[in-house]
């Protein structure tokens, strides 16, 4: 394998692992802030219990996000030094602003949120949670702006192969940025909502933490029912924007090889990259034109319209895009079904619904990864669209060295983050602290025994988790 492919694999691997955590914590911080504000307003204890419960899970997730994020800020140099030289003047400041406006804010107030329960007043806790939520969104703002500039560069001039900034407003608000930002933030909020809803449904099924479960389910269903359809509209707009600025990407997403008339929508197929046709395709005539041009007979540029060395590979993009859209539609269905059940007063008693959403927690993560696979592969063979080819962007590092570091990343991330996710599962099974519900201690560990009470006082009781 050559060094370029290895460097791409390393970036794809490290950023895919990393994105899982921000995708979750962006929404989770907003959820915690909402809970703390509700607690302040209503004084109802279960909001507070829920906030503390999710704060612990937030802490573990955020720590994993931080440690998997730090390598990213160095990887631009270690593996992509020529990219850094070409784009540093333009992309660099956006990442700099991300650090200055977001990272410090999040990291610092996380300390207050986690450790301040005994030292600071409740309003400060809520403020800290709110500042973290704002910080995570700011972080998304800048990093998506930088990524969008790589997709749809604007506001710069090229001199001697190096990009120089001309108009910062045009750079930051480059053509694809507003769509990408809205699409990704909504995806993040949906992802968290799915996890919260799933946890609520699982508690409900087992019959534990009922107050907390009801709140989680209502908030989760509400978010899905509103944001799911919104996401569909945003995705549509984002697609139209890509058609305008990166038509080759759209052609690859739709496995649209030749523009021979009104575009059909390929529901599913096996794209054959050699023969440049779709095998076993199920298509709907005219629907592609309708979706992409909002016109029954609209024409859409196909792959054959682009030079061979300016086309992305089709297979990954085609399937990843379908996975994302399929999940999106499923999530909308879950949200609307939940809303109907809620209206009819059967949200907490419909076992089939509780079971299905109980398993829905990974959907958001999968959809986000699939979406990023689509958009990043769709930009190929460029790293900065139309400006710098990926093969010209790497560092002068031997393939063996890159392979070794890739292996180290896979090994370390594989071990550490699997354990982390296992711990999150353990915390979810343990449930919100302080809920004196139906969980009885084991017979040999009654609270009046010295061992158990010593453990109670030093750390949270490890009551037997409900089986969920």
């Amino acid at each position, binding site marked *: 394998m050559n060094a370029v492919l290895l460097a791409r694999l390393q970036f794809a691997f490290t950023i895919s692992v990393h994105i899982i955590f921000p995708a979750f914590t962006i929404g989770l911080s907003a959820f915690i802030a909402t809970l703390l504000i509700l607690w302040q307003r209503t004084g109802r204890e279960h909001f507070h219990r829920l906030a503390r419960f999710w704060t612990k899970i937030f*802490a573990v997730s955020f720590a*994993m996000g931080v*440690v998997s994020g730090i390598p990213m800020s160095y990887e631009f140099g270690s593996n992509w030094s020529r990219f850094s030289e070409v784009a540093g003047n333009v992309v660099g*400041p956006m990442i*700099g*602003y991300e650090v200055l406006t977001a990272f410090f804010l999040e990291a610092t107030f996380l300390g207050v949120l986690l450790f301040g329960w005994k030292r600071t007043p409740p309003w400060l806790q809520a403020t800290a949670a709110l500042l973290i939520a704002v910080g995570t969104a700011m972080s998304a703002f800048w990093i998506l702006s930088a990524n969008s500039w790589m997709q749809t560069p604007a506001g710069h001039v090229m001199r001697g192969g190096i990009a120089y900034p001309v108009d910062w407003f045009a750079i930051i608000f480059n053509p694809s940025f507003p769509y990408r930002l809205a699409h990704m933030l909504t995806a993040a909020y949906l992802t968290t909502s799915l996890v919260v809803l799933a946890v609520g449904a699982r508690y409900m099924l087992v019959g534990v933490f009922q107050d907390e479960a009801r709140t989680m389910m209502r908030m989760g269903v509400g978010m899905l029912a509103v944001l799911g359809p919104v996401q569909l509209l945003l995705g549509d707009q984002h697609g139209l924007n890509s058609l305008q600025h990166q038509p080759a990407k759209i052609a690859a997403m739709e496995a649209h090889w030749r523009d021979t008339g009104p575009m059909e929508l390929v529901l599913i197929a096996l794209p054959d990259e050699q023969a440049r046709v779709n095998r076993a395709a199920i298509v709907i005539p005219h629907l592609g034109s309708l979706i992409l041009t909002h016109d029954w007979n609209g024409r859409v540029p196909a792959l054959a319209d682009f030079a061979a060395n300016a086309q992305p590979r089709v297979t990954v993009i085609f399937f990843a895009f379908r996975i994302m859209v399929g999940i999106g539609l499923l999530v909308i269905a879950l949200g609307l079904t939940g809303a109907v059940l809620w209206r009819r007063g059967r949200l907490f008693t419909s076992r089939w619904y509780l079971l299905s959403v109980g398993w829905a927690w990974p959907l958001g993560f999968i959809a986000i990864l699939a979406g990023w696979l689509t958009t990043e592969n769709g930009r190929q063979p460029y790293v900065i669209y139309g400006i710098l080819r990926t093969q010209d962007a790497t560092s002068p590092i031997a393939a063996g060295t890159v392979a070794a570091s890739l292996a180290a990343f896979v090994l370390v991330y594989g071990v550490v983050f699997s354990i982390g996710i296992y*711990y999150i599962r353990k915390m979810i099974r343990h449930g919100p602290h302080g809920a004196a519900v139906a969980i009885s201690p084991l017979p040999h560990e009654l609270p009046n025994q010295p061992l158990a009470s010593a453990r109670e006082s030093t750390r949270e009781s490890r009551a037997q988790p409900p089986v969920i």
Partner: protein
Amino acid sequence: MSALSGAAYWLPLICAAVVGFAVAMYIVLDGFDLGIGILFPFFPREIDRDQMMNSVAPFWDGNETWLVLGGTGLLVMFPHAYAVVMPALYVPLITMLLALVFRGVAFEFRWVAKPHQAKWDIAFSAGSIVAALCQGFMLGGLLGGTHIELGHFAGGPFDWLTPFSLLCGLGLVVGYALLGATWLVMKTAGTLERRARRSARLLLTGVLGFIVLVSIWTPLEFARIGARWFSWPNMLYLAPVPLATAFFAVVCWRGLASRRVMFSPFYSAVALFVLAYIGLVISIMPYLVPPSISVWDAAAAPSSQRFVLIGVAILVPFILGYTVFVYHTFRGKVRADEGYH
């Protein structure tokens, strides 16, 4: 250099000061929490380790963010230096980042894993030690010089590995351990504090040994640096650096010798670090990648530097403000029930 005037001369210098400030903040702030990890093997009791961890837990994340600012600062303001240094220091850099993964997650995982936290104690400690070693290797490797051809790094993956960089690595481990031990003197009480005091005196002796060794070795190994320090009248102007170092070493020692002095050991240890850092800056300026790439060679487009400096001027005061606020909120000795877990 003389050809540069006005903004073209000053802008890169101001930017270098900003990046230098971020790196200095990182070394001092993450230094003491890495130091806690380095000291872990010498404090085997669970109750001590709980307190040591809790004394830094609210801060570590913010501390480590300065590392991100240092790295992105270099990318933003000196992309050419960033593009040469990162490939040159590839091996210690990646190793450091992976070590930081282990120690970072240990802050949370250790509590969730209880009572099976032993493996995360090891991860925390080994991660801290390896990260500190690698940072020293990177410093030593950078000072040792980088092989550049046609503007790109053209050396091998282990060019940084020299006796001098090994010395820097060990020195940094001992130095961070001193910061950690004096931090514990300030933030803990009882037997933990007493033991930290004893360790800190030993570590201070070690740190002074390393400072002397590096101060002799560097000018002998690198003639350019020798000429800077030991020529007249530079010697006179630069004399305050070693003199102040000696002064703070005495303050630190006396503070540790007393039973009641809580703050001066830590603050004088920080002063020792700052002085060593100033010494380093004096030695390598105006180069970012000695001996060939200067701050002016590596500078980003002036409009990029200006755009970021505006943000720095507005936002860094806020960052420092709320950093102080958090340190103030969690001031004083750590209480036994401090954790949130």
